[in-house]
């Protein structure tokens, strides 16, 4: 599996133009010019969409500088369409953040506790004086 984060996939699929591009690629690899035809969009705009899809691992693009055909990465798309796989990634990434949150929270609590202890000591010292 690619290491792209779920957010890249989410972002890639959230856009209707990009979903339409994926749908077109089901029938085979296609050049940027051909892909742009059904959309009222400039080639650079389409290229931008393709870059997002490529980053998310949903398509790969040929190396030929002129033609650069886009190809659907069916395996990756299936992975995204499979709801269990989707949630496995969702939870894994969320729990990484939960782990970081719990660490931060406890570090803050420790710091607070240390500060309070220091203040108590300070008060005690004052009383003795």
């Amino acid at each position, binding site marked *: 599996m690619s290491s792209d*984060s779920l957010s890249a996939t989410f972002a890639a*699929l*959230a856009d209707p133009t990009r979903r339409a591009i994926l749908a077109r690629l089901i029938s085979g690899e296609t050049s940027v010019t051909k892909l742009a035809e059904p959309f009222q969009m400039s080639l650079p705009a389409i290229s931008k969409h393709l870059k997002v899809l490529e980053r998310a691992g949903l398509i790969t693009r040929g190396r030929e500088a002129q033609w650069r055909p886009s190809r659907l990465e069916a395996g990756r798309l299936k992975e995204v369409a499979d*709801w*269990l796989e989707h949630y496995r990634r969702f*939870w*894994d990434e969320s*729990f990484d953040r939960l*782990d970081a949150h719990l660490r931060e929270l406890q570090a803050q609590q420790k710091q607070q506790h240390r500060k309070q202890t220091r203040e108590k000591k300070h008060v005690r010292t004052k009383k003795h004086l």
Partner: protein
Amino acid sequence: MSEQRNTSEGQAAKRELVITRIFDAPRELVWQAWTDPKQLVKWWGPKNFTAPVAKIDLRVGGKYLYCMRSPEGHDYWSTGIYREVIPPERLVCTDSFADADGNVVPASHYGLGEDFPLEMQVTITFEDVAGKTKMTLKHVGLPESMSDMTNTGWNESFDKLAESLQ
């Protein structure tokens, strides 16, 4: 075409996801992170997402509504109803995609696969392991033929009732 059908049948059979994690924190703290909206927004969602909204009515039958925002600014809402609330041990709730008003919507609303169940159930258990917390999450897709299952349940009850009356 028939190959595709086989694939979707295979997926239908695999309807359960289990994830276990150990957190280096007491379980009261992990429980709070799940049930205090102020804390939930700090971690809910994949890498680089934020959570602008979390509403939690923490009681059996109570609802929650979360929103997470992608780095591109797309909002994804989810909602559900709490089925079991046993602090700090066990939390069971349903889980569905939603719109901003909390109405349940299919996953296709967000451009996601057609095979996503409309309603799922999430069970989270928290175990104390020498001061750390072992958290187990079970995510299950509720079958669409839920009414059939309920019918079976009723029929069995009626059978028992019939037997007891004989």
